[in-house]
């Protein structure tokens, strides 16, 4: 009865921004990004991927409350790049990876489909029902 509407998990509220950036004043080159209406799908992808870059000194996320679809991503760099640019770069790289994956998937799927259809046809022929 009191349950929040399920669409609140993925629809931004009126006037709400997807990402809010807040610079950490006590630590240099650090910012906390609050992503609204996103979950572990994006959070884990970004935080783990960021750790692979040499200029990232810290990257982690938390979901402040499990009932609210939001997460906070904290990113520190060594100063050669801003946290924001690091995330943008990271996103672009993941998009590139997915691009490669998509092309490989499409070609391999078509190839495998042709092969398995050929196999099925041959099996049908061998059974004698033309």
């Amino acid at each position: 009865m009191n349950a929040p509407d399920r669409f609140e998990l993925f629809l931004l509220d009126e006037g709400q921004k997807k990402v809010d950036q807040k610079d950490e004043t006590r630590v240099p080159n650090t910012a906390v990004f609050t992503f609204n209406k996103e979950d572990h799908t994006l959070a884990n992808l970004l935080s783990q991927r960021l750790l692979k870059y040499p200029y990232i000194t810290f990257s982690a996320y938390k979901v402040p409350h499990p009932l609210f679809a939001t997460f906070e991503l904290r990113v520190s760099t060594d100063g050669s790049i801003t946290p924001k640019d690091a995330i943008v770069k990271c996103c672009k790289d993941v998009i590139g990876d997915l691009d490669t994956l998509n092309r490989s998937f499409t070609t391999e799927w078509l190839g495998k489909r042709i092969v398995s259809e050929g196999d099925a046809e041959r099996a049908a022929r061998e059974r004698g029902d033309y």
Partner: protein
Amino acid sequence: MDPFDVEGGAINVRFLEANPTRAHFIIQNFNLETANSLRRYMLAEIPTLAIDVVEVLDNTSVLADEFICHRLGLIPLNSRGVDDLLYSRDCDCEGYCDNCSVVLTLNAKCTGNEIMKVYARDLVITSNPPNDAVGQPVITDREEQGSCIVKLRKGQAIHMRCIAKKGIAKEHAKWAPSAAIGFEYDPANKLHHLDLWYEGDDPKKEPVDQERINLDGGAPAEDEPFDYDAVPTRFFFDVETVGGLDPDQIVGRGIKGLQEKLAQVIHELTGTGGPEGDFGGAQSPTMNGGYNDAGYTTPGYGGGASSWGGNGGIVGGTTPYGQPTPGYGQDKPGW
């Protein structure tokens, strides 16, 4: 070199099985976080069509109205071409219209002495959907009847108007495009990510999936020291569809959707491009995100690195991420 990895370090896919209901494949040279995000995206965020509102005009069957309505919601509908429909909440109409919904009517009455079964095939589209495919009940059984909705005895009847809308599985599981997505890495547990349970006192007696272990480079040697730096690179996916979308469409849309999600983050952070300016109002996830403007287009795969290209100093990464694979079409738009 790995005998199964003919691509020499680039991200690639190998199929184990491909048929109209199932895509069983391995992604090689990939990373765990992206693979898992893809899995989560395919499970929860791919739009499909499902019955969302039911107007009960007549129900004299033994099942309660809400019971039947729930069953109707779970019936898989053809979602090929669901992109031609708007989300109902984004549509200008009040309630529903042809641009954002498909109306199916179920009208059955038992007149004979035998018990009559009402099947999913008895759902008839009574609106004007944007294309021929979208909204048809999925029928894959040999008898071509689909799933059984109710049984009627003599004199009983049901008459319902079902309004099918576009949605995602995050809102309700009835919109899930896949029956199940198998996901596994490291079947031999060489990375010790799992602490496998075993019966008795000898873990070696437990059955193992030898076929998969062989596909993943074989079992570890007896005296092989534990590699603390090892990371999973090979991922087994088994995508099974409920019939609304083809398995390759599920994966394709999953990849595309995840890219759009990331493009939206880029757009939000850099403030470049974007067809709709700011993202003020409440919008559906796939509505926004500027993926067609200058900053987001890959300018032809054939001609040098894409705009996403470059390696970007990934630790130990010699893989040319985003580099074009020669031979693949130059004519691909967008991504």
